[in-house]
């Protein structure tokens, strides 16, 4: 009886949370099928199934290309920050040396300036390196967001791993690189996947740099492409189109999570066996 009640309560909790998390997305899906005056009325169910807003966002601008750009940038950002983050985390998390705390704090300090203050300086750098109007400018500049975060998370996880596993490997004569790749990486998978995912989303959603550093439609990323969607006149907000675009770009991310599910679960078992 108690067990049944507890199971029911758990289900209810899950249901409530799902509604809380997903209702706005559902609302976006609803709105993406609307046009004209219907956007001002409250509806709980779709009144019509209409994908014309979806068709329009792809015909009015190179939206598929924009998605591809975002994917390229986000994957490059994730790969680079994980690589740099993992090696740095090995040093910061496993080796004791002078200045380590100061270094960690300095890395953190990079994340303490408002983005708009960094914009002008970053703009000058991007131009000085000749990266203006190129996707590389975004990969480059997003490091300022993703690196501090990646380093800190991986360092804190790295530090928590028991000392013995490393010592055994050192006895076997493993170098630091082997240590990282063979010993730590498999144990850190959940952390790697999670930080990677979070970094991916940061890169995927960034707007201000993407708007300023790239001027041609073919090179633009998704958030800017969404901001470019317009109505028939200056003030009109093309709500249906914006929602259609937002739903469209959220789907690849959901797919990504579903693909990485396996990794998350694999990490679970690996941790259980070795830990």
């Amino acid at each position, binding site marked *: 009886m108690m067990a049944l009640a507890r199971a029911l309560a758990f289900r209810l909790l899950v249901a409530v949370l799902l509604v809380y998390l997903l209702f706005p997305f559902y609302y976006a899906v609803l709105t993406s099928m609307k*046009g*004209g*005056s*219907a*956007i*001002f*009325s409250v509806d709980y169910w779709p009144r019509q199934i209409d994908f014309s807003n979806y068709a329009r966002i792809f015909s*009015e*601008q190179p939206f598929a290309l924009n998605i591809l750009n975002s994917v390229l940038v986000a994957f490059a950002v994730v790969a680079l920050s994980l690589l740099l983050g993992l090696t740095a985390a090995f040093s910061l998390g496993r080796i004791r040396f002078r200045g380590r705390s100061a270094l960690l704090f300095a890395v953190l300090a990079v994340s303490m300036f408002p983005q708009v203050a960094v*914009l*002008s300086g970053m*703009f*000058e750098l991007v*131009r*000085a390196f*000749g990266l*203006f*109007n190129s996707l590389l400018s975004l990969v480059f500049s997003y490091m300022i967001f993703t690196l501090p975060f990646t380093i800190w998370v991986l360092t804190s996880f790295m530090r928590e791993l028991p000392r013995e596993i490393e010592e055994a490997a050192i006895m076997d004569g493993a170098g630091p690189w082997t240590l990282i790749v063979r010993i730590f990486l498999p144990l850190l998978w959940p952390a790697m996947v999670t930080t990677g995912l979070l970094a991916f989303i940061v890169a995927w959603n960034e707007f*201000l740099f993407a*708007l*300023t550093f790239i*001027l*041609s*439609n073919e090179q633009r990323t998704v958030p*800017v492409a969404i*901001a*470019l*969607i*317009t*109505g*028939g*006149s*200056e*003030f*009109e*907000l*093309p709500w249906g189109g914006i929602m259609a675009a937002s739903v469209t770009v959220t789907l690849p991310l959901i797919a990504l999570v579903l693909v990485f599910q396996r990794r998350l679960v694999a990490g679970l078992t690996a941790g259980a066996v070795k830990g």
Partner: protein
Amino acid sequence: MKWMPRVIGAILLSFSALAMARPATSEPVEIAISCGAVGVELQLCGDAVRAWEAASGHRVRIVSTPNSSTERLALYQQVLAAGASDIDVLQIDVIWPGILAPHLVDLAPHVGDAAGQHFPNLIENDRIDGKLLALPWWTDAGVLYYRRDLLEKHGLAPPATWQEMTEVARAIQRAEREAGNRDLWGFVFQGRAYEGLTCNILEWIDSHGGGNFVGDDGKVTIDNAAARSALALAASWIGDIAPRGVLNYDEEAARGVFQSGNAVFMRNWPYAWALAQGADSPVRGKVGVLALPRGTGEGGKTTGTLGGWHLAVSRYSRHPSEAASLVAFLTSRAQQKIRAIRGAYNPTIPALYEDPEVLAANPFFGQLFDSFQNAVARPSSVTGVHYNRVSSAIWRAGHEILSGNAAADARLAALAVELNRIGRRGRW
């Protein structure tokens, strides 16, 4: 500090020297123009640009920029502050010539007497320190929308003064709510803390004969009796004929309430007309449009805040005369006529308001002519680079008065002090 941009500048210069090594004769050049984002606006711009390419032999690249004017301004500032030549022709808001003045080219030597055909108040707006920094492309002015059906039903005439509008709105709101229409409000406008509120405040004050915040001579004029009574009246609307939520309404939020049939009056720009009359609009065929009401008392007049977009040429353009000729082409009578007919963009050339083809496509243009001609400009030319600071001081004061956190009298006096400090006592 100063050397770094210079070093970067030198690096860039060496790159651009390479690019400029080819002969600079009448070879075809490429001009980059920022106009519109996507959709109809971009398409119209694209078509016009193709026509110019065919006529001039030059090439044009379109740089699309976001529709939001704050984002567009931020982007322009970055590009211009870096002295970059990536955009030659800029589409700028009517209030930007003063703000961007140091980065813009004087068009007067390039465009001949083209300026003469536009509304004089627009050209005056674009002339800073004797230089013509932009040419108007299309114009806008605040107007009053009303529910013709509701006024007729209750036997009330369209109001000519703000006082009358308040009374009509209150009467209809009360009667309709008693009849079961519980969601109906009397009046909606733009009360959010942003540039749009400054536009609304300007209309209230100017229509009472209280001027436009800062006189042409640079003197701060905002603290006057007409302005005080105008703002006191506006503050009395909140919670009475206007919902409290109006304090966070922008153009679309206000239109949403009006277009779903829940407001008797609405202050908005002309764009709302076509949408309110759209096939699926609940208020289709029930809407009228008027010039904004007068203030009661001496000096009361109809007015409307001047809006719209203009075209300017960047000082860092490598081909300023070609760029200026593109601007002259796009703002010409022929091009504006096409835009008016195909996209309902309000022309900046008075003669087009008598053009039968334009009027056939947009029957309500005739009614708007007075609003455009009498439109009052925000003090963006006289305050120059300080305009946004001035406007933000004004909307903050207005927002406080509307919210009931400050009385109009005391707050306007404080605002005058603030504006005087920003403008260094009228020297700007």
